[in-house]
């Protein structure tokens, strides 16, 4: 019983960075923008957040620094893709490559430094419940914040006028433009918000999850988060669910090892990547289903003059 509770707890902890990044990318994509730079933004935010937390001693300063760094990295992408009309795929890819190099360069001085693990408070009252306490209520605050952000995004998308405008920009930027909405500014706002969330995700990885900085520590989570939005057919709650599913896969390897299952470590570590491929295959099998759910202008450059 206790083992299962710990497995659930570990799943939530491992799924949270994917959820945060996936939700950020969801906001991007609902506005019609694909940012393949997620991996790079997360890397830049991870090192910035770690540095800020290390120097100030406050993890929340670290998360804020991560959010700012993620948004700053996203602004490079947004400026190029939205105002200079560059190809979104190539630009995002460039940001990922730049982020890998930049984070390694900036982070050289922080390799080997350790943050003190702060005790997790959990939710008072609920944290001492049998089974449910250790499983659900002894998590880092960001785990709960991710759920709240999911709810907030769902409310924003489906219950507010601004959310409707954002989605219309993603479906038909020409119509939104004709109605007088500033398509590029709206998309830029979405790109910055997405970058900030990816940034918090990266900072969570280096400050809470690892907690340390090493080059390449994002380890493909940005790309998996991109796959998550497809898996979730661009719906907020499903992004969260998918993130926990992937978190569970990550944790399964540790669990199996604990059980003494004799599979080499490397094959276990392949699981998240292989499951991403499997999930993409399963979800993409029906092109019509994807086309019905995908924001119609996703990845397409919008030029207001034409």
């Amino acid at each position: 019983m206790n083992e299962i509770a710990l497995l659930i707890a570990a799943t939530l902890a491992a799924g949270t960075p994917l959820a945060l990044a996936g939700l950020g990318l969801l906001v991007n994509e609902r506005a019609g923008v694909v940012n393949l730079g997620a991996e790079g933004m997360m890397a830049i935010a991870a090192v910035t957040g770690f540095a800020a937390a290390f120097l100030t001693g406050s993890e929340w300063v670290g998360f804020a620094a991560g959010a700012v760094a993620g948004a700053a990295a996203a602004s490079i992408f947004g400026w190029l893709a939205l105002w200079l009309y560059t190809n979104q795929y190539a630009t995002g890819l460039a940001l990922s490559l730049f982020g890998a190099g930049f984070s390694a360069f900036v982070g050289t001085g922080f390799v080997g430094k350790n943050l003190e693990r702060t005790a997790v408070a959990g939710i008072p009252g609920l944290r001492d419940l049998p089974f449910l306490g250790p499983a659900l209520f002894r998590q880092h605050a960001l785990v709960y914040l991710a759920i709240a952000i999911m709810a907030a995004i769902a409310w924003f998308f489906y219950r507010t006028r601004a959310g409707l405008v954002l989605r219309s920009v993603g479906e038909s930027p020409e119509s939104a433009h004709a109605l007088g909405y500033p398509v590029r500014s709206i998309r830029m706002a979405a790109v910055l918000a997405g970058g900030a969330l990816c940034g918090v995700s990266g900072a969570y990885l280096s400050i809470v999850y690892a907690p340390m900085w090493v080059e390449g520590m994002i380890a493909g989570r940005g790309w998996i988060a991109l796959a998550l939005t497809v898996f979730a057919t661009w719906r907020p709650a499903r992004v969260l669910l998918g993130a926990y599913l992937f978190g569970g896969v990550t944790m399964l390897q540790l669990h199996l090892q604990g059980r003494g299952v004799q599979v080499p470590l490397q094959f276990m570590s392949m699981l998240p990547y292989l499951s991403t491929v499997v999930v993409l295959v399963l979800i993409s099998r029906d092109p019509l289903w994807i086309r019905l759910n995908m924001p119609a202008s996703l990845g397409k450059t919008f030029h207001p003059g034409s």
Partner: protein
Amino acid sequence: MIRLEARPAPSRLWGVLSPVVAIALTVVVAAALFALLGKDPVRGLEIFLVKPWSGARALTELGLKATPLILCAVGLGLAFRANVWNIGAEGQFLVGGILGGGLALVVTANQIPMSRWAFFPMLVLAGAVGGMIWAGIAAFLRDRFNANEILVSLMLVYVADLFLSWLVFGPWKDPKGFNFPQTMNFADGTGVPRLVAGMRLHWGFVLALLAAVGMWIFVYRTYRGMQLLVGGPAPAAARYAGFSSRQALWSTFLVSGGLAGVAGALEVAGPMGQLTPHVSQGYGFAAIIVAFVGRLDPLGAVLAALVLATFSIGGELAQSRLGLPSAITGVFQGVLLLSLLGCDTLIQYRPRWGRR
């Protein structure tokens, strides 16, 4: 107030000028970064850009670094032109390296008498097969199940990396290697024939140049090459003309994967001489930048590969001579690609001053 106005036709001038301006911008950023870090920018740039070109040994090292970049980028250029987004060349490189290294290991372990020239074609074939298998998975999943090839090819990079790690930590580990995660050193007969006596530069460089020339002929002088070229910018027209997009997907994935695999095999059997967990130094990803800077043109890729090879060696020199982290290479690579994309805007658009 500057606004961008679409040109009636793409500017040929800016198509050529854009990479040059982007490289110049990157050099400016580099100088500024050196100054910011308290280094003399002139000396910094000298070490970064001039030293890699100074002397015969330096030039052969430059060619050695450029070889995998050329091989990968020539294939990627073809794929990107056909609008096929294979960004997993790094994984295809690794699997090519694993198969090529495995072959060398078999020869070494069984003490099979072998000469370098006899082994060379086998090595190239093994690398090509390895790269094609890995690229073929992504092509198959795209073709059969419509799975996004960007994400699939990238996920397979991590899988290949872990697979290599398992091999060198496990079954292929050198029993006499003091438990280091590496294979035994390959026999001399499995090396790649040297181009210049006493230097590490090998015939793979010539092979890479031949691949570039061959690709240039294929793309610009054959009907099949033209089919692939049309499919990228104008898929509807290509369909109307009866050109198969499935064929474009498969052929570009297999060609780019095969070339990346050859690059991996040459790297493992050439300068490395054994398999370790760190076979690639990000060649497959750097090759994406090479392909774009080289205008997705095979001969352009050769020039761009020399630029990126300069950056790469310059980064190593910056580490040993200036005490800067060698990761600075990655920063400049990223800046180069981002500035290039920005400059490329001028190919399609003309800046106009003032309000409409």
